[in-house]
């Protein structure tokens, strides 16, 4: 039994346990412990976070002359760490009060916990894949596990999950096509065989492979233009499930993309594949897809008034940063993109959890029906505050470091338009996360929420732990960068030289220890100045300047709906819903074709039809 076997076995055990006993009260806690045990199994493979070790699994089998095997390297380890971590925190969150609440609503806790465990398990299997065939198997397992967790909540959720499924199957088919093509070219499903065959492939073949694999993996990552499925499906997933999916699920696409396109095909080939009649090559294409993925979903998020949808749309947008960073493929950029995977997982999980906590207490995630909760749920507020600072990429949280790395590498590589695109995405993020926190936690507390309490500790503790992680990895980004440089080495990307506080770089480096200490010192001085003068007097929220108007508790005095009217007045007409239109046109086309085909099968004169068929078939043969 290798360490990898232990990990997979533990994960499978978690799935079996939750399936068998997911309904008992303490199931969530036990599952959480099991995730922690998986984390320990990962720690046993700690070396992979820092060096070029590879752990093989003793499981493998042969079929049709092909061997399927599983192994972990630094790339898998990094993603597995996030996966297990996300599983751990989500399960923790879902253990106490949330579970009772969920059950009281008539849902099956067993189904939820086992879906979560299956997700973790299938992702680990995917991450461990050692050849294209096991990659595809893992891929399908992940797709179906996500479908399960997405669809189990409600009829509406199932509708969105169905949409996901259609996209996912289409993506999987593209991948399968790619794999089959590789097999046709090399006669093998091994990674090494593909890597060896790449230099001999023509650009056309590579383009086809790139589009197939990229398209397939892109569906999971919800890259533009196949991004429509994700946000709604994630938003409707039960709280901790959404936290888990948002944190890591679509990162599997990035993992596979790095594995196949970056590690096996390689950057050299991508740059060499130019698009005729443009200045672009394959890498630029990916980079631009990434930038559009940043911009469009982020600005769709700006218009959402359901907190979960808003976050989920951001999830789509943030994928763009990761992909952009990775496809820049220098040391800074790829480190930034990969670090963003980690950072994003930490704060996105936390944000979804805080929104779930709000829903748990108030029963709604509609931003137009919340407000002023900061005095009632201060711990949840802290979690969300840390989360949005991270999501917006401001210091002192970890989100800043990864975005800084990406920006810095774009400057170093001289990619101005991508840079501007990325900044546009970030600005949109800042706008909408402020709307999120303002409309839920700040502003006027509604009368009906006056008696709301803080969420129970089983929910606040995981959030606060994540907040601590977000802050600490922002303070000491070197910890994460260690893992990432090991990853870069194993994938074949240039390795980023770094230290505990960030990167030392002759042309303007970054030292987060200094930066954060400076910021904290500055705010401390600000506090000193503030508190050194007269005592402040807390006043009631209705003691507020309203142009001389008398406010009373029943007056809704909160500015929430259509939060950015000026901006949307200008850019509102730019939302054309083109992708939605294209999607529904495709569905309508399929519907029409379907009806036509049914007409074909229902025709009333079979004999005439048959005669025609025979004549056509015979003449076809005879013409040839």
């Amino acid at each position, binding site marked *: 039994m290798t360490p990898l076997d232990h990990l997979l076995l533990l994960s499978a055990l978690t799935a079996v346990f939750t399936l068998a006993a997911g309904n008992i009260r303490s199931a969530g806690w036990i599952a959480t412990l099991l995730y922690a045990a998986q984390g320990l199994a990962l720690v046993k493979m700690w070396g992979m976070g820092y060096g070029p070790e590879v752990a093989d699994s003793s499981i493998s089998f042969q079929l049709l002359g092909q061997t399927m095997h599983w192994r972990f390297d630094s790339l898998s380890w990094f993603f597995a760490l996030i996966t297990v971590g996300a599983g751990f925190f989500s399960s923790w969150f879902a253990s106490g009060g949330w579970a009772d609440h969920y059950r009281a609503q008539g849902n099956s806790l067993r189904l939820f916990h086992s879906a979560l465990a299956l997700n973790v398990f299938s992702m680990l299997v995917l991450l461990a894949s050692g050849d294209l065939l096991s990659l595809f198997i893992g891929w399908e397992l992940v797709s179906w596990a996500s479908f399960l967790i997405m669809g189990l909540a409600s009829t509406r959720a199932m509708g969105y999950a169905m949409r996901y499924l259609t996209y996912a199957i289409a993506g999987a088919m593209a991948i399968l096509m790619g794999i089959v093509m590789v097999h046709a070219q090399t006669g093998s499903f091994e990674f090494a065989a593909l890597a060896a065959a790449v230099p001999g492939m023509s650009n056309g073949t590579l383009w086809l492979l790139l589009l197939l694999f990229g398209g397939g993996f892109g569906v999971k990552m919800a890259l533009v233009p196949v991004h429509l499925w994700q946000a709604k499906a994630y938003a409707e997933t039960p709280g901790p499930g959404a936290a888990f999916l948002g944190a890591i699920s679509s990162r599997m696409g990035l993992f596979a993309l790095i594995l196949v396109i970056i590690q096996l095909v390689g950057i050299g080939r991508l740059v060499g594949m130019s698009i005729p009649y443009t200045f672009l090559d394959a890498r630029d294409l990916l980079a631009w897809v990434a930038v559009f993925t940043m911009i469009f979903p982020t600005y769709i998020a700006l218009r959402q008034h359901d907190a979960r949808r808003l976050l989920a749309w951001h999830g789509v947008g943030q994928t763009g940063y990761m992909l952009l960073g990775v496809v820049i493929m220098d040391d800074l950029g790829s480190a930034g993109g990969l670090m963003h995977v980690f950072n994003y997982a930490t704060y996105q999980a936390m944000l979804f959890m805080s929104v779930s906590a709000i829903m748990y207490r108030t029963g709604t995630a509609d931003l137009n029906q919340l407000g002023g909760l900061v005095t009632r749920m201060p711990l949840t507020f802290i979690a969300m505050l840390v989360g949005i600072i991270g999501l917006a990429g401001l210091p002192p949280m970890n989100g800043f470091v990864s975005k800084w790395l990406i*920006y810095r590498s774009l400057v170093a590589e001289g990619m101005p338009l991508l840079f501007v695109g990325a900044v546009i995405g970030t*600005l949109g993020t800042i706008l909408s996360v402020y709307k999120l926190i303002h409309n839920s936690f700040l502003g006027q507390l509604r009368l009906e929420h006056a008696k709301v309490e803080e969420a129970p500790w089983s929910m606040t503790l995981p959030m606060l732990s994540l907040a601590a992680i977000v802050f600490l990895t922002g303070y000491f980004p070197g910890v994460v960068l260690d893992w990432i440089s090991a990853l870069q080495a194993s994938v074949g990307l240039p390795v980023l030289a770094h230290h505990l506080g960030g990167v030392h770089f002759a042309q*303007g480096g970054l030292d987060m220890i200094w930066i954060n200490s400076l910021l904290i010192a*500055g705010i401390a*001085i*600000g*506090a000193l100045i503030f508190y050194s003068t007269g005592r402040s007097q807390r006043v009631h929220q209705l003691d507020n300047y309203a142009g001389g108007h008398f406010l009373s508790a029943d007056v809704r005095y909160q500015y929430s709906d259509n939060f950015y009217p000026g901006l949307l*007045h200008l850019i509102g007409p730019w939302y054309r819903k083109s992708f939605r239109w294209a999607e529904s046109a495709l569905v309508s086309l399929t519907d029409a074709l379907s009806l036509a085909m049914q007409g074909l099968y229902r025709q009333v004169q079979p004999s005439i039809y048959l005669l025609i068929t025979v004549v056509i078939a015979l003449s076809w043969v005879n013409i040839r």
Partner: protein
Amino acid sequence: MSWQELLLELTLMPLLAFVIGLAMVLMMRRIAAQIQRRVGPPLLQPIYDIVKLYSKQTQISHGFIHELGIMMAVGGYIAAEALLPVPGMDGLADKGGLITLIYFLMVPTLGMALGVGQCANPNGSIGISRALTAMLAYDIPFVIVVFGVAFHYQTTNLAEIAAIQQAHGVSGWGMMEMPLLALAALFALQGMMGKQPFEVYIAPAEIATGPMVEMSGKFMGGLFVMQSFQYYTAGVLYTILFLGGGENWLTFLPKIFAVVAIPMTIAMLFPRFRTEDLVRLMWKWPVMAGLLGLAFVMN
């Protein structure tokens, strides 16, 4: 550099920034008075205002976040000053360069936005909504400029950017080498400083000074302090990027005051743009100029 020296620098830099910032506030009010043919405030008026505000008996607070917002607003700028190299003092410029500074400057904005949010006053929220929209508007030309400069000098270290320019004399200034970018940056500067015609988020008669609507006493005082830091930061940043930074204080001070004087003068000549017009304007001319300038820089 020994730690004592560093500590001294870190203390001096915000202090200097504050004093110079106060002078800039005074200058702004004097310029306004001159244009309107008034006498204008006395020399120490900014100090009077701040002392008065901090010495108010009643300090109306809407909760801890309201207070935290002010601390972040002031503290964020105090911290940011340590990243801005001035003659003789580099501070922490090598620990985080241009990009870090840009992000750093969003911290006070965020703090302010949070604080205003807890006031539960829609005027304040509307103001923040407009301020963030304005940020979206002016930051796009501004990041084009930032990219151009960073790419041109192949560094994001502000001290180095200044040093490179100083090595070539006046003809080596960013303004000479990248005139279009300098122009675009000036445009963005007007927005960043929130001066007319881009001050719709304050709009006193419409939304009662927007974000400041519930700020009284030391809260308002904190914002006055922040304003002086803000003017100083804008002036120094522009000077470093385009006017060769500061070799010594004698040349440095006139430069930063001149930089700040331009938007202030323009401000007094224009009425106010609506939000969407502001965005449209910012996304049109300065972006065009910036992109054109960038094209020259990149080739």
